[in-house]
């Protein structure tokens, strides 16, 4: 646990020292604000944050891999992975530490958007329930996206390869539900269940469904498990 926290703390510091942190933060804040303004500029505006929560899933499929691409790929390229793996640290502690750091980076993206919620409360009386649950859902979605990114980063010593691979996997996983109308029988349900975006819908409606929570938790755990395995396999090559 101590090792995990040491690694997480080191990665978090490295992330926030780099300009990347602030570029990503600015990009996300700008896009969220844009979607927020367009959603409340209609004829009958609703006092919700739905306007930027749904587009956020797409933005996250692009930004999460950028946050995670460095984490393991660079260690492999710089040879520091050899140092980590010959230190008395277990492989899962390395992965978990990196993942926690990635979560901290992701949470930092959401901080500026609190401003939009404050705006909403100043000019209207929004229902806080769905707002909080939507944020919770987005955090879980982000968790899943980061786990895919971390796995991709473990596969390659090249950050670009890692990022593009993760984006590809995430895009497929988020649009797979569109095929539900073509798929028949059990497959309709299957593609809807696999999709990482469909599980966000109830959160945005204000419903915290354990079935969706469990989906994200299992998905993330599985991806992190694969990452640990991928790291272990480096020892056997």
């Amino acid at each position, binding site marked *: 646990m101590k090792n995990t926290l040491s690694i997480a703390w*080191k990665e978090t510091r490295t992330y926030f020292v780099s300009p990347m942190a602030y570029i990503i933060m600015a990009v996300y804040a700008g896009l969220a604000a844009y979607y927020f303004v367009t959603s409340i500029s209609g004829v009958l505006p609703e006092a919700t944050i739905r306007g930027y929560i749904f587009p956020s899933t797409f933005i996250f499929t692009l930004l999460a891999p950028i946050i995670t691409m460095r984490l393991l790929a660079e260690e492999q390229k710089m*040879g*520091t992975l*050899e*140092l980590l793996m*010959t230190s*008395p640290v277990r492989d899962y502690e390395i992965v978990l530490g990196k993942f926690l750091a990635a979560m901290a980076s992701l949470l930092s993206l959401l901080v500026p958007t609190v401003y939009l919620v404050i705006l909403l409360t100043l000019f209207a009386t929004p229902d806080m329930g769905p707002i909080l649950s939507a944020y919770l859902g987005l955090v879980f979605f982000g968790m899943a996206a980061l786990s895919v990114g971390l796995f991709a980063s473990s596969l390659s010593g090249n950050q670009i390869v890692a990022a593009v691979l993760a984006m590809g996997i995430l895009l497929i996983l988020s649009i797979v539900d569109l095929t539900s109308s073509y798929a028949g029988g059990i497959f309709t349900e299957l593609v809807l269940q696999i999709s990482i975006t469909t599980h966000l819908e109830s959160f945005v409606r204000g419903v915290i469904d354990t079935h969706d929570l469990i989906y994200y938790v299992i998905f993330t755990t599985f991806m992190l498990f694969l990452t640990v395995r991928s790291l272990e396999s480096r*020892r056997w090559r």
Partner: protein
Amino acid sequence: MQDTTSIPMIEVNNLTKYYGEYPAIENLSFTVNKGEILGFLGPNAAGKTTTMRVLTGFMPPTSGSAKIAGFDVVDQSLEVRRRIGYLPETVPLYTEMSVTDYLDFMGQIRGMDKQWRRRRIDEVIGICRLGEYRSSLIGKLSKGFRQRVGIAQAILHEPEVLILDEPTIGIDPIQVVETRNLIKGLGGEHTIILSTHILPEVSMVCKRVIIIHEGQVVAVDKPENLSGRLRGSEHIEVDIRGPAAQVMTALRDIPGVQEVTRTDSGDVGSYDIETASGADLGEHISTLVHQRGWGLLRLQPIQMSLEEIFLSLTVTESDSA
């Protein structure tokens, strides 16, 4: 002169590692006692790095076993990793961190508590003479200083065993001397394996040398014995201004000279003189040239390169077989 108690710290038994079909090391066996500095000598791709990676628990062997401080590198990997300090060939550094931050992180993941870390960071910065650069970013340091940071992290947690993969490669000559002295000073309390492909380095630093070639042990001995064994002949290169034919015969007539070959013609000729071992004919040659009234432009004793040593070793070995 075996002053330290001969407790085996590193035991390697029939270690074999295959990369696919290709054997990187085959049936490697050796023992290193506590406090000993063992030189690991071999040309590139001889299996030095592979052996070290197996010893540090970075990769498991295909067969055979290795123990460090009595712990198996595969089954008790974590215990082994607690007891080793490792400097890989490409010095693994986080270039965006400062020297102290990096050392502090390395200390943390090796389970050192805060006080111990603080004390040791000051100590290793002193030992490796990094004082001026303690808060510099590692990425901004020159190659030699990065190497020192690498050594600093390896000795930070006072490990029982130090494994250094080519610690003096790519740094300037003054730093090479400093690094060697540093390593020498670490022997005694630490058990050290040091890989290199520079022969003089081994004789300066190590008490015992293992030469490996194509994954197999070719020779194990003390450096002085080894050089004795290896010195079947020595070479001297000279540039002499004078009539070529006469120079050749005159050189051949010097007692102890086994072979003279002319490598460059022209007014000034370059000659490669092969002499018996320990003959030390430099003075002899210069007097001769002087007496004849020729011009001696260069006289250079040639140290045997590692490739030649391997050649001579493998040849003698197959001859005796």
